[in-house]
């Protein structure tokens, strides 16, 4: 499904995935999904499946890489890790996100 159908604001899922991989190192899809859910502390109704199109998108852009490995229950699983250009992207995106949020906040405060 297209990202706008998920209940995660458009573009932010990519950012969250990149951030997760940066701080936790290589993870499989399940791990990433769990981590994002935990971080959101229940504020996010995420269909875990939605993570896969996002992972593919990031991979196509070269921001993350994947390799097959063994999961904690000894099953074959695909592990994702952030690449160098992914880190740079994350840095840029975080800054611009911060700026956007700050700007929106200012406007909201001024209006009220």
């Amino acid at each position, binding site marked *: 499904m297209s990202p706008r159908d998920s209940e995660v604001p458009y573009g932010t899922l990519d950012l969250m995935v990149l951030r997760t991989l940066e701080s936790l190192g290589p993870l*499989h*899809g*399940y791990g990433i999904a769990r981590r994002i859910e935990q971080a959101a502390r229940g504020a996010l109704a995420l269909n*875990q*499946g939605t993570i*896969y199109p996002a992972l*593919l998108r990031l991979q*196509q852009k070269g921001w993350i890489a994947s390799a097959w490995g063994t999961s904690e229950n000894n099953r*074959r699983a695909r592990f994702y890790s952030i690449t160098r250009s992914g880190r740079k992207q994350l840095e840029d995106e975080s800054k611009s996100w911060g700026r956007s949020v700050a700007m929106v906040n200012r406007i909201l405060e001024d209006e009220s």
Partner: protein
Amino acid sequence: MTQLRVLLWRVLEPLLRRKRERELAEEIEAHLVLLTEEHLRRGLSLEAARAAARRDFGGVEKVKEAHRDLRGLPFTDTFHQDLRFAVRLLVKDRWLTAVAAAALALGIGASNTVFTFVNAAQLRGLPVDEPERVLAVHRMDTSGRPGGVSYTELETLRAEATTLEGIAGYQRSASTVTDEGLAPEQIRSLYVAANAFRLLRVVPSLGRDFLPEDDRLGATPVVILGESVFRIRYGGDRKVLGRTIRVNGVETNVIGVMPEGFQFDYFADLWQPLAAMPGLTTDKRDAPQLRAFGRLADGAELSEARAEIEGIDGRRDRERPESYRESRLTAAPFNGTISDNPIMPALLGSVGFLLLIACANVANLLLARGTHRAREIGIRTAIGATRYRILRQLVVESALLAGLAGVAGFGLSLLGVRLFSNAVADIAKPYWIHWSMDGRVFLFFAAVCVATGILFGLAPALHLSKTNMVSLKSGAAIGARRWTRGLLTVELALTLALLAGAGLMLRSFLTLYRLDDVVDTTNMTTMALRLPGAKYPAPRDWNVFFRRLEERLAGIPPISSATTASTFPYAGAAARKLVLDGADRSPSTVSYLTVGSRYFDTLGLRLVRGRDFTDIDGTAGQEAVVNELLVAAHFPTEDAIGKRIGLTEDTTAPSWFTIVGIAPDVRQRNLAGPDPTVYVPSRTNPQPFAMLLVRGAPGTEAVIPIVREEVRALDPELPLYGIMPMDQLLSQSRWPYRVFGVMLAAFASIALALSAIGLYAVVAHSVSQRVQEIGVRMALGAEARQVSWLVTRTTALPLFASLVLGLAAALGVGKLLQSMLVQTSPTDTTTLLAIVVLLLVVSSVACWVPARRATRLDPVAALRHE
């Protein structure tokens, strides 16, 4: 850079699809296992844990679909999937597929056939460089009929026109070729200006082209041969170049041979310089008897050339007689002048209609099937297919169906073109017209197939792709029914219009038959003779020759009657302006024939009043026989016998005749019926050319050798040519009505059949949809009549609406065909009434059959029907 990576990833999809698909499945599976284990740890049972895992994950198929969308190129990735599905569906519904493809194939086949003719007759044109820059120059009279130009006018245009690279006059003729050791032969020829071939950009394949000095009075006579004459008469011997042969009795030098297939302008096989035309540059300088063409100068446009020619012509008006000023010298594309016939647009229109009917029909079939497919589409939507995706699936199905129909239709059009070329094999058509397909036809064909696919696929696709689980439950059939009714109306209305066209043509054909009945053509043979000017220089010689021939032929047993004439029924005639004593009305045009003394007798034409020509008519007095139409037009209230009429050739002073007899009306110049006609004795206006009409024992074979023998006895060097039974000639003259009438009738019948199938399908579908309801109604005591009304009433409104629309369209069709109609009004009530009745009867039967089946349903079985 990032863009490129993405593209690369997507482009590789077809190669890696299997692997990527497998890995994704494995990844999702692993994810689900981990999720399930987590739920198990929370103390859920295995079943519950699995369900919870699936819930947390969301739709597996949905995720996979999104993944696939990202992976491949937007269209190709799922295309072959759509295709496979579409093939499977078409095979499954093979009856529906067959009916739909057959209907479309008929439409496509008919269109392609007709377009092949139109392309050959009107679009392809002269086989020369840039044929669209070759113009015909002619004098257009007030009624829009093109006529000839004079030598003087051509000289003026040649000197003054700057928009033309050059202009060339020409005149069709027939030349007698005689030389040592070969039989005399009559060959279709052309007197042509020396620059003509250069303007056409065609060079002789052997020898040389005409030079300006060949085209001067007193120049050494020269001739260029056609390839077929060179090959057949002279055995392809190059030594004929430079040799001297006798053309019309004149020693003439062979200077060149034209390339194979070149027969400009119509089917000439021999060309002589214009100056060799008897009397052209002297006493016939101002006779408007030449045809002419020019080529646009570089950078000049047709409109400029036309304006310039009209301007030059206007300046010369003062020097000419009054009657001349009504007409205009003008130019038109050469290609358009040959086959400017309303039948072509009419045929194109009718196959367009047919194609639309076929499309409407198939759209209806697909809509009907759509109600069965609604469940499938509803499910697809529910598991995540977008409307775009559904639409695409339906488009692929339509495209496949259109492709299938295209292949079949192409086969049909090959057959159609063959049938047509056989039907018109013996008509006289310009040499460059051959009924073959070329790139333009294939392009048209492809466009038709694509357009058809879109046309019939669009309505069902738009309608069906809106289906979702909600509309599925609440009966989306309403919208489909609206579409169905609309399509049915269009279909029936177009059918009515087509039937009207065919009906009017048929009626014209029958009228023509009746009109032609006045002449008894049984065992009648026609032939032609031309006396070469070198041997027969004076009109007296012509008279003597033909008189003697008539006398010789009169007494020989298998020949019961024979006559000479300038032309004969249905074969055209010269035109003259008619002037009346003391009348100040503007002159009208009449057909003009010079005939031998036994003309009416030989043809079996009984004069209505007055007397036939006698052997002495024309020697002293100036007698004429006119036809009834002329009498009705000019002497409606008085006795025409004894009245005087004058005839002029536009520029000449009228010669006066006294009417001695009135003949029945016979078609001459006008295909679509008789014109006012004047007959005068040959003696009055002798010509070196005559048609010979001979009636004899059954079979032409018996008569021809006798006539040949008699001609040879008079002059062994004279060839007899144009030998043809009159019956055949007559049927040739009617060929447009026969061939196009049959074509229109065939198209109309197909349309009617398609409409009947369409109606049948709609009613039958309505029955199958409402079996249960019908069962209930019948169980509650509904009568058969009520039940049939229940299922047929969907068709009542479209039928009524289509009668109104169709009759309006029929009037348009009649207007278009008007100039082809023979004494038939384009709003002919009988025809229109007949076709309305026909349509109603066929429609009723098509509705009645499935409706009757509904009334015979067993109520108990119907109630249980699911």
